């Protein structure tokens, strides 16, 4: 009888939540955004999504084989990196650039550090920034959406944030027609990267993750809250020049970044206070880069910079151990 008995130290039950299940849920949560992208940008978006995802999976397999480690693509983390990378690219990205990005994301962004759980930076963002710096032309060639059935071709144009930056540089004023397009921006009917266009679809996915308790509110709230406060401040100072907070919210990669990139567990702090601090930092940097930096969009850089600060944040936001707070007061 004892042959089949299990012995272990406690606890003897487990929640049943596994890494693979968490990763799968994140993939499901990204599907609405992928769907909207394919609707607005057509087959080109689909091909970018496929190339990035398959590229990441293949790179993971090759890396792990080379290092003599067990292949762990079944955990879904490489697929998430692939999808997130695709969502961060323009729909017109050439296939070789997407593939190169996928290889960079997994090989340089993740595996060189030791694979899942060891990378200091968000792999998809590492790849995006490498591509942005290496291929500035391709990475900033944006297309206007051409929804299925509209008969429109993809036309090269600028993102709302890019348009604003150009206008401000030329005239010091915000273009008037941008004020009225908020609803279109919210639904995704605007030029932009594959994933950032529809705030609605992203929020749907995020809601699912909240429901599954995979996301906590701390980072997204702190991130977006800071962006709203800071951009609101500038807007109040000079509404002619600076766009209002809603514009900041629905254009660019803020929603994608705040809910899906800045919440990457591996590269963000573990304590509640740390998460809040991380979110605030992301928000500050995003607004500063958007309003005063050279690039029209600052979410990726903001998150990567805060990733670098994560170990430091973790160090200084260690939760107070139970029973040590009062002791200090007494002493």
């Amino acid at each position, binding site marked *: 009888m*004892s042959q*089949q*008995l*299990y012995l*272990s*130290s406690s606890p003897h039950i487990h929640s049943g939540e596994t890494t693979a299940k968490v990763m799968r849920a994140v993939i499901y949560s990204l599907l609405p955004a992928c769907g909207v992208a394919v609707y607005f940008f057509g087959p080109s978006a689909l091909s970018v999504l496929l190339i990035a995802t398959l590229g990441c999976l293949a790179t993971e397999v090759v890396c792990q084989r080379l290092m003599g480690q067990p292949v762990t693509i079944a955990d879904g983390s490489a697929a998430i990196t692939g999808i997130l990378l695709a969502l961060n690219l323009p729909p017109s990205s050439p296939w070789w650039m997407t593939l190169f990005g996928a290889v960079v994301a997994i090989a340089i962004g993740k595996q060189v550090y030791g694979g899942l759980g060891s990378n200091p930076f968000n792999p998809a963002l590492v790849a995006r920034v490498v591509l942005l710096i290496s291929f500035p032309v391709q990475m900033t060639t944006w297309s206007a959406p051409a929804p299925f059935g509209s008969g429109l071709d993809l036309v090269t144009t600028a993102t709302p944030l890019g348009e604003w930056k150009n206008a401000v540089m030329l005239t010091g004023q915000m273009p008037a027609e941008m004020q009225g397009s908020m609803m279109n921006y919210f639904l995704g009917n605007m030029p932009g990267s594959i994933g950032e266009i529809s705030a609605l679809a992203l929020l749907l996915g995020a809601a699912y993750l909240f429901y599954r308790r995979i996301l906590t509110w701390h980072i997204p709230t702190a991130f977006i809250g800071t962006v709203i406060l800071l951009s609101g401040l500038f807007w109040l100072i000079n509404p002619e020049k600076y766009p209002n907070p809603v514009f900041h919210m629905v254009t660019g990669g803020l929603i994608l970044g705040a809910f899906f990139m800045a919440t990457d567990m591996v590269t963000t702090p573990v304590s509640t206070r740390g998460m809040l601090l991380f979110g605030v930092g992301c928000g500050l940097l995003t607004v500063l880069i958007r309003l005063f930096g050279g690039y029209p969009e600052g979410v990726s850089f903001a998150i990567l910079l805060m990733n670098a600060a994560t170990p430091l944040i973790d160090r200084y936001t260690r939760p107070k151990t139970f029973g040590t707070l009062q002791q200090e007061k007494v002493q």
Partner: protein
Amino acid sequence: MLAAILSLGGIGLIAAVALGFAAKKFAVEVDPRELAALEVLPGANCGACGFPGCAGYAKALLAGSIDLNQCPPGGADTVAKLAHILGVEASAATREIAVVLCQGDNRKAQIKYHYLGLEDCTAAQRIADGPKICPGGCVGLGSCLRACPFDAIEMTADGLAVISREKCTGCRKCVAVCPRNVIRMTPYEAAVHVLCNSHDKGALIRKYCQIGCIGCNICKKTIPDAYKIENFLAEVVYEQDAEAAEAISKCPTKCIRDFSVAYPDGSVQLPAGTDKPHAA
């Protein structure tokens, strides 16, 4: 362009002068012999000498407070070099290596339960004295492997720790970490060992292990000088083990092994009939 070259060059020059000055001004006097001694030490910082790393040992050597042969990983070679550096007589220590006195892997030794949890022998030992029925055998969760600073220990596919004769430097880290005391220090020259660590009676051992020593006395009868039996467990008398190998073929459970014959290349000790260790 020119301004850039001049300013960068200027900064470089100032920094170089400052560094050079600091190096001279704040230089710490180090006995050159200490550096030389550190050079010949293995550099594994294993702590076998009882000092904080090789540098600590080198310091202690120069202070003259200790013997030269406190570094088992370095071996006789290092002792000779150290003696040369310090200009003293070398006192040669016999080289000792660690041996796992057990061949009861997962196929040969029976378990009383399946262990789940932390992959650590000490943690498993705390739960009902370990998953194996045998009270003395290798637990097989690789705590020694993780403790070894010289990569000399491997786990076989069937969960048994095996130690390379050549890679082992005798630092005793594995001996300290093993909760079962199944790893022993033996003279390097002694290649014949009784690979069992259970003092249970033969009839009991046969119930849980195919390859344990049953205390049958046959080895001692064959070569009386080379073996001793205590509490139903045979042991090689390492001072008089010249002919110990002759009893190997007589052992009914095949728990006496001669590593120099089976593995003259100094590769790991392997129980009879086990697969090669898989890459860890």
